[in-house]
């Protein structure tokens, strides 16, 4: 077994769960396994480039982001945000009334999120869902820490603005993903 093999096994076993969670948060359940497999396939092929220590996981997230970007591209025309919402588990809230209220708010905030620039969306998700520090977000996205800081600042404001706008409109329709203009 080569040093690269050993390293890959370490990376795989240490971070499989994280990568799985990352992908599961961003795509439908039937696509998760492919995305995770693609991510680790890339890691295997580029094992010499996988950074050591704390940078490894953000690096894997960056790969997974690109993998999922491929999925999103192909699916943009067919899949909408409500697909992702529909795949959300309901077991993290208690009573049905709570669930309905929270689900509506979740839909609305996710719809607001979908109206932001893709990178800003990902910065927010990495920050809130993966709980990454700004330095790690920068590693994952391949941008500077300063850019992350600035964009996070803007993204928070923009998200609040979009959410407020949706609240005022009473918009309950599922989000239409951005796209088509490019």
């Amino acid at each position, binding site marked *: 077994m080569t040093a690269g*093999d050993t390293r*890959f*096994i370490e*990376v*795989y*076993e240490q971070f*499989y*769960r*994280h990568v*799985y*969670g990352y992908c*599961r948060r961003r795509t439908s359940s039937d696509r998760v396994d*492919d995305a995770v*497999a*693609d991510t*680790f*396939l*890339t890691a*295997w*092929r*580029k094992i010499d*480039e996988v950074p050591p220590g704390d940078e490894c996981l953000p690096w894997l997230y*960056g*790969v997974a*982001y*690109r993998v999922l*970007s*491929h999925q999103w*591209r*192909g699916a*943009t*025309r067919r899949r909408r945000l409500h697909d*992702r919402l529909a795949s*959300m*588990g309901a*077991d993290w809230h208690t009573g049905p009334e709570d669930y309905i209220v929270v689900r509506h*708010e*979740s839909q*609305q*905030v*996710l719809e*607001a*999120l979908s109206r932001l620039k*893709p*990178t800003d969306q990902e910065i927010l998700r990495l920050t*809130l*869902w993966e709980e990454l520090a700004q330095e790690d977000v920068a590693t994952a*996205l*391949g*941008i500077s820490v300063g850019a992350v800081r600035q964009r996070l600042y803007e993204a*928070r*404001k923009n*998200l*609040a603005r979009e*959410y*407020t706008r949706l609240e005022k409109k009473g918009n309950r329709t599922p989000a239409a993903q951005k*796209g*088509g*203009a*490019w």
Partner: protein
Amino acid sequence: MVTTEERVMTLLAQANPIPDLDSFDLIEVDGTRYLANLNRRSSEMTGTDSKPAEVVTMRRRPLVALALTAAAVLVVGAAAWLGLNREDLDVASAGVAVVEEFARAVSSGATDLSEDVTDGATFGPMAVPLDNDLASFWAALDTTLTVSNCAQSAQVVRCDYEWTDRIRQAQDRPEFGVFTFLMDGSRIAAISGDVDQEASGWLKGAATGNSLGADADPVVHYLAWLNQAYPGWELELDWNAEPAEIGGGFAPLGHDDPVHNARYAEVLTRHLDEYAQELNATGGLPD
């Protein structure tokens, strides 16, 4: 007092679809077994350990379409950059002929490119004549390419990272991979690319001035448009070249890989066949 911004951030945190990974019953994580599986599949695929079969089997998208679209993004992007009148880029039935020619070449087995096109010096045998007229475009594009930081030799312009970066910045799409696009004054080679389906939608709009519907095929429209954009040129396509590797870079698989060649041909043929059916159903390309 909680501000709207704070409240929305809290809501977004709560909207995490998987707040607790431990709630998922994941498969047993066995890196040794997974690695062995990768190596085994790789050996089955190529006889070596350099390329696992999953690379091919997981590529379910029409890769050639991506490569073509990548080149199209460059071309149309240049057009947009230059403010060219998109209404001039009329898509006509000639585009269908180009595609048919392309499909015939594919079905005839012209998938063995003996030359490595990535060095910018040679082209493969696959060539489609372009015979419509939009002569002014090349001069404008040539100028655009020249002023960019693309590496340029006497005959061939190779354009990859610079344009990718420019498009990334202009469109705020950092996930874009790298594409490569070669020209030598009479031929175009769409080498590799990694652009998204949304780009194809944009491309179609740019190329036709119409909204063609979300499911229209990008390849046909690109070819049709390119057919008019480069009169007298030949379009050469290399479906041996992989889209940019995840994380950037450019990784041709090797032109002597028959499995991979067959895979590309299969995907492309099916893709074109599906589009032909769509054309039949809808009455053909829009004017």
